[in-house]
């Protein structure tokens, strides 16, 4: 819980500031809770030469503020503990910890079609995972704090049903990974405090060295004026091109309960 105090504090400040602005007319706010499962593939040469299958639950909180459906400001927190499994032996099973924060701001591109809205804008995404094998006997991590672009399309199929699809891509990322030989004093002394590792030295990487392509899809049902329900499918492809490359593909299926206020 101590490790979450800063992210929660920042989120509280943002929510508070947004709720102040939210008194204006035309402003809609919503708060969503998401539960889902991840399933995908993982390979990090820094950790192991083997291919791994990834699976496990994910949880998310998100806040969204729209103004006259023209601007879209969102904050999203995602966390989860997944497993990595190798076909070689069950003994190689490892824990995979996820902690992501996204802040995005999108603007609507003018359209005559009120059923179909296009938004485009930018996002800050802190995408982080920490892999642990047998205590801390084996580990790796990838912390990527990026600025990128995001495009989103929303289609109102009926008064109660809408679908949304978005695509995002980082343009510049600050990527923190283990050192060349996988281990140094900083890692050793902060292995049990992954958040401290977030601030260790990394490298700026652009698209040719770091890619995190996210395709998010949502099917949303309006249950009432205050409540929406949604089914989500997200596809994430992450690649770090280095001497010790990381490649990862995640499918995420989830459901969301969205409170509107």
């Amino acid at each position, binding site marked *: 819980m101590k490790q979450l105090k800063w992210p929660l504090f920042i989120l509280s400040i943002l929510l508070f500031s947004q709720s102040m602005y939210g008194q204006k007319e035309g402003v809609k706010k919503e708060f969503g809770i998401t539960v889902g499962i991840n399933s995908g593939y993982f390979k990090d040469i820094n950790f192991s*030469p*083997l*291919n791994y299958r990834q699976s496990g639950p994910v949880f998310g909180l998100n806040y969204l503020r729209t103004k006259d459906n023209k601007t879209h400001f969102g904050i999203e927190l995602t966390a989860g503990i997944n497993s990595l499994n190798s076909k*070689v032996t069950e*003994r190689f099973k490892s824990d995979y910890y996820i902690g992501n924060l996204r802040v995005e701001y999108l603007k609507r591109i003018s359209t005559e079609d009120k059923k179909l809205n296009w938004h485009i804008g930018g996002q800050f995404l802190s995408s982080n995972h920490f892999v642990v094998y047998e205590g801390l006997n084996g580990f790796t991590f990838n912390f990527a704090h990026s600025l990128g672009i995001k495009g989103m399309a929303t289609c109102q199929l009926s008064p109660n049903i809408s679908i949304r699809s978005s695509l995002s891509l980082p343009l510049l990322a600050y990527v923190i990974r283990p050192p060349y*030989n996988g281990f140094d004093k900083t890692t050793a002394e902060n292995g049990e405090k992954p958040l401290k590792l977030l601030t260790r030295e990394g490298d700026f990487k652009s698209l040719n060295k770091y890619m995190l392509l996210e395709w998010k899809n949502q099917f949303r049902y309006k249950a009432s004026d205050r409540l929406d329900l949604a089914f989500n499918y997200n*596809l994430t492809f992450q690649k770090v091109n280095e001497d010790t490359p990381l*490649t990862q593909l995640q499918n995420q*299926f989830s459901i969301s309960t969205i409170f509107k206020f």
Partner: protein
Amino acid sequence: MLIPLFLLTSCEKAILGEDEVNDPENNFEILYNDFKVHYALFGVRGIDWDELYTQYRPRVTAQTSDQELWTILTELIKELDDGHTFLYDGDKFGFYSSADDPDATTGDEYSLELLESKYLERPLIHQTEDEEFSYSKVKDLDIGYIYLGSMDDQDPAWIDLVLGELKQHKALILDIRDNGGGTDSFSARVAGAFADGEHFVYTVQNRNGPGYNDFEAPRKFFTKKEGNESFRKPVMILTDINDASATEIFLLHMKAFEDVVQVGDVTGGDFSDSSSRRFLPNGWEYQYSVQKYLLPDGTSLDGVGHIPDVFIKNTVADIQASQDKVFEKALQVLCEDYNIK
């Protein structure tokens, strides 16, 4: 829905590439090449890794059995004689450390029970259930006694409390036998309670490239006074061959101070931290040393260990005969050289 179903079931190879082949030759090659580009102590330990490839690689073929591969790989890493390098299969072959030596000590060349019953005035005060942190006073002599069995799993500031209890004594026996290590920061903190100032004691370099001589710039480490107690009287440190890693870092600090004498056997000679665990397609695991520790003069104690100021070692028979020669020698040095009664 077709896209996710397709991605879930059919594209592992397309995304990640083919998984590593599990055959004896590939397992050998992965381990050999991983050491080649990451292991940090070839130079320090005088190992020609390329030459070893020409010796060992021809012994591995597609028909090599698991037993044969285990033998070849353990013989290969045995060449390194490095306690932080090991192979583990998690099954029938178990665990093999590169420094495994059938003639090494068993751990029974020292007994805390014997010390407590014969040499110490009052029962040891144990800080932990596993008795790795204990202290007392030597019988009939104005000498304190501390046993430090690990360099981890305890708040190192514990040493301040202990020295607060023992500071009135004229000298101290600091027993670190059978202490396999822990963390360097723990060692530095405990040693800081004995510091007489700042001394440059060692450098650390991480290997940072595929070339055998690719190392980052050395990081210097110094002794530093720590805590609210400072013991500056004679200290006898009792050592044995099982002392390794952070325990040897502790000795690097302690031996920089005046009136500190190492009594006992040479230490293990394994300074580097171990790598993160490595994995092979046949389900075996291994680790290796990834750092180079050097003394201020550029020499290394890796593979050598700390040579004691006063060399003496116990046998199991000594302990069975209720005699701890190492402890007795430390008392003798204190009485004769430091005139402690």
